[in-house]
């Protein structure tokens, strides 16, 4: 069996099945939805960071842009929610295109510039002068499309597409070439790889993923403010989850989200007063002792982790 098929059958399909069944047995649907959103975002970070080495500290910019793309289409054009989600993805891609010059930077410089860019988009959207278009800082209310059940299903579809993209990267020459670019761009070009084009493609795919996730999120919550959908927490959580599990793998970000977001909610419910302390210590421990993520525990022993 080709390994791509194996990955789809034994990782992607079971994960989707579990999240498709869970709403029937577990009452906190919002929590399940948030899990799905973070699974999508962590894999989106995986695509850009794991396969190209660009750390997108302002990843939420695409997410928020997608959410507002959805809102504008619904508010001003009365578009059906599914169409609006697709447009949200395109808004993410458009913002990605606008920000491609950032790819000229690397390392911390890229991360900071990307963070600044996401703040710029936030303040652009939240600008009171744009009240007629975005409702500015006053937030949007999209009661017309409110349908959490359908929105949850849409989130699962986006998750499936995202995981499909990561499985493709993990099993294709394209993904291999991306990793080569991440390791050494000069050598990659000497292997005949068009470095700039590869980076731009990965960047736009991860922007598309976040845009779609933002659209689905807007559909699900239906009432939100700029500060909600542009909250830096989305970027940081998605990055931490992806790194905790281990990037450039399919399982790493999944394990990262389920463990860390699980712990996050567990601590939040039971002992909220210790939550930030424990969470902070956990992340510090991770950075100090497992910089390559949980997956590296296995790969260090020579086990192959998809």
């Amino acid at each position: 069996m080709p390994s791509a098929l194996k990955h789809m059958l034994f990782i992607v399909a079971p994960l989707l099945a579990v999240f498709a069944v869970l709403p029937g047995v577990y009452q906190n649907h919002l929590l399940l939805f948030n899990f799905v959103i973070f699974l999508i975002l962590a894999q989106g970070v995986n695509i850009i960071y794991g396969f190209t080495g660009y750390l997108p500290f302002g990843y939420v910019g695409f997410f928020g842009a997608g959410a507002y793309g959805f809102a504008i289409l619904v508010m001003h054009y009365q578009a059906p929610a599914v169409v609006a989600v697709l447009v949200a993805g395109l808004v993410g891609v458009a913002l990605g295109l606008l920000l491609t010059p950032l790819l000229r930077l690397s390392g911390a410089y890229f991360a900071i510039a990307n963070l600044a860019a996401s703040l710029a988009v936030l303040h652009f959207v939240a600008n009171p002068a744009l009240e007629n278009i975005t409702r500015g800082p006053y937030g949007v209310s999209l009661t017309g499309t409110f349908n959490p059940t359908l929105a949850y299903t849409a989130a699962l579809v986006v998750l499936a597409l995202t995981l499909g993209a990561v499985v493709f990267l993990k099993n294709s020459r394209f993904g291999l070439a991306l990793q080569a670019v991440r390791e050494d761009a000069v050598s990659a070009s000497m292997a005949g790889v068009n470095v700039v084009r590869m980076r731009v493609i990965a960047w736009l795919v991860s922007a598309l993923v976040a845009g779609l996730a933002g659209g689905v999120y807007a559909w699900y919550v239906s009432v939100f403010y700029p500060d909600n959908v542009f909250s830096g927490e989305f970027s940081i959580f998605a990055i931490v989850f992806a790194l905790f599990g281990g990037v450039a793998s399919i399982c790493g970000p999944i394990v990262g989200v389920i463990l860390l977001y699980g712990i996050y909610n567990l601590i939040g419910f039971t002992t909220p007063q210790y939550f930030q302390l424990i969470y902070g210590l956990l992340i510090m421990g991770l950075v100090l002792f497992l910089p390559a993520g949980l997956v590296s525990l296995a790969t260090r022993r020579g086990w192959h982790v998809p």
Partner: protein
Amino acid sequence: MSPDTAPILNVAKLTKRFGGFYALDGLSFHVAAGEILGLVGPNGSGKTTAINVISGLYAPDGGEVVLDGGSIGGVASHRLVHRGINRTFQIPKPFLSLTVRQNIEVALAYGRAAVAPPDMAALLDEYRLTDVADRPAADLNNAQQKMLDLVRALATRPRLLLLDELAAGLNPAELDWIAERIKALARSGVAIIVVEHLMGFIEHITDRVIVMNAGKEIFEGKLAVAVQVPQVIEVFLGGEHAA
């Protein structure tokens, strides 16, 4: 080289400036298919810069680089690879976290070799990498990483191969072995430019050398002749030895 062979690469009056410093200052030379050309000169004479400009890492500031009659100055590296130029690096630059096999796979898949790309198993075997094929490139020793650099270049079937200090750090047995491999490549029709400090090695494998100083050529011909030329002796050993 027979005089009627048209050169595959022609470099004319090439200049490359870094700020006010001219790393290349009017360098001219040519190399023909099947020929091994040595590029020698003291440190800082512009040998590696020449390789970097020819392989597309830097755009030239003046002069021409002509491959098969077409100007290639400033063309992106990956396009030059597709047109038949490849190189190794002084400090090998493999994809460290990828396995040796994956390293080569990238070049096989993206190199767009003009003729059928070479066979992976044969390449691994020929350059003594079969035993480490499934290990990450980071696990290789320096000599093995150099061979991997070379194999990555060969996987794209270059017609012009630039070897930047491939021999430095190899032991005598490895030197003899790699010298034979380089000669065999040249016999198969590849034009090869070798940058090297080991004069014995240069003497052994090259047909012709270009001696560089301060960004331009000061001698062209056999190495054995070069070492008798006062100007060459002066740049290598200092003025008092030239007399």
